């Protein structure tokens, strides 16, 4: 059993009158892929944004490596080693791979950009992830395919000695072969000892790469269980109804919303 690297306890989040997250608990373990699933509007993205410091939490506790921490903005999250790869990529097409990977955190030498150091570091990171599909680290992102872009975005997130990487639907817009590459990459992140949170709608992807599956249902954590103990249909029931047999939330008449 791997050590928990990030633990959320009793997270609540409201946007005005809308109570989006109800007492959500989530444990992310180093070296494991935790899949975060749930229907549209279940609160997956909100939860990720809370972890990343984009949204503040109304109440709840966050433990990072066992220590309570308070994350109020993305910089603090990044300083802890929490990186988010967003669904819409957030890459600049007019810049090359190296420039994108170091965007906002460029290395400088006497006040000037240290291209050599950045290029070598970028290449090293990509090599460590066994990324071999890109011809040159000086290729412009506009010349990359969707899968390659996703690869760059993920590689960017591990460049910073990050410990937890949150991936928001990394395979949503990809073809079969490209999805394959990205899933392999997700697996390798975990093998390198990172805690990985994968948001996905695709059950095949989830069962293929995840070690645990956390299911959100209407803003509540329905269940968080090892993938091997779950079946496809159980997860689908958890997503759609919040429970499946003994698993999941208590009956709705008990757990009134």
């Amino acid at each position, binding site marked *: 059993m791997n050590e928990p690297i990030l633990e959320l306890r009793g997270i609540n989040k409201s946007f005005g009158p809308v109570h989006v997250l109800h007492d959500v608990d989530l444990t992310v373990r180093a070296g494991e892929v935790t899949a975060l699933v749930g229907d549209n509007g279940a609160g997956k993205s909100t939860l990720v944004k809370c972890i990343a410091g984009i949204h503040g939490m109304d109440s709840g506790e966050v433990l990072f490596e066992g220590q309570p921490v308070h994350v109020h903005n993305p910089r603090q999250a990044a300083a802890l080693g929490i990186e988010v790869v967003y669904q819409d990529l957030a890459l600049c097409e*007019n810049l090359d791979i190296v420039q994108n990977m170091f965007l906002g955190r460029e290395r400088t030498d006497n006040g000037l950009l240290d291209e050599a150091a950045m290029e070598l570091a970028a290449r090293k990171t990509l090599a460590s992830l066994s990324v071999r599909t890109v011809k040159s680290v000086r290729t412009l992102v506009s010349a990359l*395919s969707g899968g*390659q872009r996703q690869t760059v975005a993920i590689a960017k997130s591990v460049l910073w000695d990050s410990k937890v990487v949150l991936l928001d639907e990394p395979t949503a817009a990809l073809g079969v*072969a490209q999805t394959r590459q990205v899933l392999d990459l997700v697996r390798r992140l975990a093998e390198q000892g990172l805690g990985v949170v994968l948001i996905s709608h695709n059950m095949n992807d989830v069962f293929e790469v995840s070690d645990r599956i956390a299911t959100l249902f209407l803003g509540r954590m329905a269940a968080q269980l090892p993938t091997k103990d779950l079946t496809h249909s159980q997860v689908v029931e958890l997503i759609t109804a919040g429970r499946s047999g003994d698993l999941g939330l208590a009956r709705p008449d008990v757990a009134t919303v």
Partner: protein
Amino acid sequence: MTDSPTAPPATSAGPGVADTGSAISDFGIDTTSRSTGEALRDYVGRVRGGELGPLPALLGLAILLVIFSSLSGNFFTLNNIANLMSQGAGETIIAMGIVFVLLLGEIDLSAGTASGVTAAVLALHLFNDGNLLKPMGTAVYYAFVIVLVVAALLAAFMRIWIGAVFAIAGAGIMLSGLGANPWLEMVLAVCVGTGIGCLTGFLVSKVGMPSFVVTLALFIAWYGVILQIIGGLGELSIRQSPVLFDVANSNLDALGSWIVFVAGAGGFAAVVLFRHFRRLNKGLVAQPTTLVVVKAIVVLALGAGATYLLTLNRSPNPDLTTISGVPYVVPIILALLVIGTFVLDRTRYGRHIYAVGGNREAARRAGINVDKIRMSVFVICSSVAAVGAIVFSSKVGEVDGTAGNGNTLLFAVGAAVIGGTSLFGGKGRVRDAVLGGAVLATVQNGLGLLGFQAAPVNIITGLVLLVAAAVDALSRRKTIAH
């Protein structure tokens, strides 16, 4: 599993590279310097994929030179070529500032009349021996000072300290009443330009109005300001100040010309070669050595040739007068070109400009202060426009109510776009402004020599700009289509 780049089909370079690309692991291909042939094929591929770079401008320039040389015997004379350089210099310099704004996908329509305001203040200061209160009138004078102070405060609020210092210095010079001095006047002009840029930038980045509307409004407003402060005074001659008049009408001596050559072309070759071999040593992606050496030699040879020709006597009446040497505007433009390119390529600030222009949201998420970057480019644009104002005022030798009006802006934006800077943001270089400025100056000069009147000259200039914008839009479509 190989995932060949799908975008511009030809970017996958020559067949050799495409075949080996998947086999070589861990970016092994990056460490090997490509052969010249591969690099050239790669370049052709990029061009066909829509990344045209300076190619259209260079081609256009070459065609224009051939056409005009064959049609007019006076065109390809030393005197005319040297004249041509200083003719378009003012607008070219304004265009260099506009490149920064275009890189964000914004536009500054007020750059022309803003430069006119700085020219008016410069001429007024010179004409009244530093006493601006009398010619401006109390209300206008203090309004001007207050606007500069407000601009400085806005810049300080956004932590653009250089902008704040320049704007407050402008107010200081106005209040100090220091007597006429050409150098002081040039500094004042730039300071006023900086102040104007702070206002524009704040309105765009913080208030959030589209730059098109803000600068359209200011375009009209600054024109009014010019009329207000010098409109009733007729033409203010700046010939009384030899320094100001010489900026665009005089030349370096032979020694100075060669010093500029050594500093410019020699410096370029040294930097290019030094960086190339350092990259090779560190095992980084580099162009083939042959190509880099050829590039350096070509620049050195062209520079030496041009410098030699310009140091000859090019006077139309060689017996009576001597005109020789590199025009002062050349080192001025070269200096701005070097500084601008350096800032864009080698500093974090420059990188962030490209990032904001490419994808503002991505830049924001990367922790870049997008508002500050957006404001700062307008500060740069107006400050550089003031330098352009000094040059074009010097060229004409006087400043009147139409300073910076008319075609100035069209020329400046046109120069940047013709040179290859994209109107959609994220793509462009300072050298584009110089190339495009050369194209436009050649069109104007050549058509003038052929005896065309204003009507056809304007129509043709407009069409050239239209073609350049079309090339930009089409090449963009090509690079985006996957």
